[in-house]
């Protein structure tokens, strides 16, 4: 047990810069990449990186609670998205066979996941623009009462989260945007020393939010027979 605590203690001494660079990449992947598997993996890594930053601000046990609650959200999203994808693929295959039987020509299989309203190029450019905004904002309006090397991570996560929410009405990408935004806020909220009960409630919010987003992902795909 003490070995674990020593490890956590050593991790809490790490500089925030590698964590911030990692968050730059993971949040960008969540916002830019259309393939949901990459996005969910990026979200998982993002929660671990945020956990390392939590170690700087919270007691190790509390930081671990935050990491665990975040990490548990990812399988919920994964199973929901996977179920929807397989259902869509199954329905599309049936339709394809029906069309092929009627018209004696086989249409191309449809995409299993709806196309996002913006293409990846647009989203990448927007991310680059947001990083410039982050640089400017963090220099001119620094967040109060938080270490200068952690503040950019909070701002970045909040900005990318809002960007994700604006981009799509679909529950999966918008939900991942919301979770990113909330994790950025959670990092900043650590400065208010929430205590065990506060961290516990925030973890409960994370978990129930993950569950709610997973439910929305499945409900969105249903057409009425199941409800």
């Amino acid at each position, binding site marked *: 047990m003490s070995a674990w605590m020593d490890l956590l203690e050593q991790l809490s001494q790490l500089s925030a810069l590698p964590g911030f660079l990692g968050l730059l990449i993971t949040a960008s992947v969540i916002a830019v990449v259309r393939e949901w598997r990459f996005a969910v993996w990026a979200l998982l890594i993002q929660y671990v990186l945020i956990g390392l930053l939590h170690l700087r601000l919270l007691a190790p046990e509390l930081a671990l609670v935050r990491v665990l609650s975040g990490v548990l959200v990812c399988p919920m999203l994964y199973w929901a998205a996977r179920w929807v994808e397989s259902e869509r693929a199954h329905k599309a295959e049936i339709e394809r066979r029906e069309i092929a039987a009627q018209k004696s020509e086989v249409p191309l299989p449809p995409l299993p996941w709806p196309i996002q309203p913006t293409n990846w190029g647009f989203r990448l450019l927007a991310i680059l623009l947001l990083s410039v905004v982050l640089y400017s904002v963090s220099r001119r309006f620094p967040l109060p009462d938080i270490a200068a090397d952690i503040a950019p991570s909070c701002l970045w996560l909040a900005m990318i989260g809002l960007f994700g929410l604006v981009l799509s009405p679909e*529950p999966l990408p918008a939900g991942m945007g919301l979770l990113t935004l909330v994790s950025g806020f959670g990092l900043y909220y650590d400065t208010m020393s929430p205590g065990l009960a506060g961290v516990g409630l925030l973890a409960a*919010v994370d978990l129930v*939010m993950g569950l709610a987003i997973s439910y929305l992902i499945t409900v969105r795909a249903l*057409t009425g027979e199941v*409800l």
Partner: protein
Amino acid sequence: MNTLVLPGPLFFFAALLVLGALAYALNRWPLLAGAIAAGGCLVLAWVALRRIGGMPLLGQGVDLLGRGARLSSRFELLGRTWMLTKSSLAGLGLMLTLGGLCFLLALPTPHGWAFYPFGLATLGVLTLALTAQQYVYALLLIWLAGCLMVFVLAGGRPGETTAALRSLVMISLGVMPLLLLPRYLTTDAAGYVIAPDSAAPALTIQAGQTAMLLMAAGMAILLSMVPFHGQLVAMGRHAAPMALPFALTVLPTVVLHTCFRLWEAHPALLSGEFVFDVCRWTGIAAVFLGGLGALGQRRWGALAGYVTLVDWGAGLIALGLGTRAGAEQMVQMLIWRAFSLLLVGVGWGTIFRATGRRDDLERSADAVRRHPLGVLMLVLGLLSLAGFPLSPGGLGRWPLLDRAVLGQPVSEWPATARVLVLAGAAASLGVVVTLGRCLSSTARSHAGDDRRPTGEDRAADGQETKASPAETSDGNQEKTQEPRTERRGAQGAQQARRRQELEALLSAGVSLLAIWLLGALVLAPGPWIELARRLVGNLAFSGN
């Protein structure tokens, strides 16, 4: 006899969770699950209201399996306190009564498996938020309840997730600035702002401005002020009929209670009238947008959303008066609105069910002819929300107008009164125009030979009542239907007719109950006004 002392807040929370679990276990029998949810909620509301009225049911003790049981006011966990105060009991009584009525009146219409269990779980978490004596925990519990509300809002309308997603996003965005508020209210960052025995600290000018901005931002988002009103309209457009009154009643009650307790503990937050200006101007904007939007709608749900926005804005204008009477008026309007929305939910539910869960006017044209009582409920509820004279909505709005309007020529009415009257007239006109469109569609459908089958027709023919959007839009249902034997078809038709008759009976009963409730509210508003007064508590305004 040994007396068992039950911690009051925990009792209400646990009872609601147990009811939720029971409703979930019975979700295959929605009528039974709904009856248990409604009955349980109303009984708990009765317990809370008896305690307010000085007749504590469990406070004096009751016999429980040969053992005395008593309900205590206080409950502590991890050093945090939850307490049944006069204001929290008023909020609890109000929330549980209205929640129970939503469950009861939702019985005839399918609202999805999650409506009752998650509705009860939401009420349970909100009970803890109402009774929390620490502001931060009240907010975190509101956030948690907002996440659970997603399940209530997304059920019953297959494929429709916009209202639930917007609601989740807005609650999350609204809670965040309010959670940061304590940093600017106390010298100790971990201090709690709602502590009955602590004096409110004086704010420095800069911290005070930041605190006011954070509070205004959080309140504006949580109370759906313009431009954050999208979730309110989306709920009307995309949520199931009775999810709208449920969401617009229980959550705002707790949010208002939390705001009032915050202002009670920190009156400095109300200095400078900034918050009231925000409420007043966003209220006027909401009334204006709602009136305008109500004029051009072609769907009942969207119309309900915009007409609700008019009433919502009027409530914000009342709060923006910056007086205690204004705050009480806002809570009273919340109650009148809840009853109007219940009426809308009952009427719309009837039409919604008859049209195979679609709410566009063309679809509902035939249902209007078949269900005049449902249409009457819907139109009465919408007119009440629009503030039509002598309706509950109109009576709720009247105190905002009487002093400014009575005995004055129109040219001398204040701008707020003019906007209120004009928007109310526009919203009422919108309701009448929509009904007219619906009736003209009915006439066209009678004149033409190409009448499409409604949800009820399909049910009577022994087919599925739950029509999918794809199924109803392309009209090629025959392709997907399996061939059936004649006997099975006859049996199915008989069962469907029986179910249809039961639903019609239940629907008529629920409609009559809704009318009776509305009549009781109009004829005897005293207890509700008293409840609103108690919810505001000891809050004092400098404008008084």
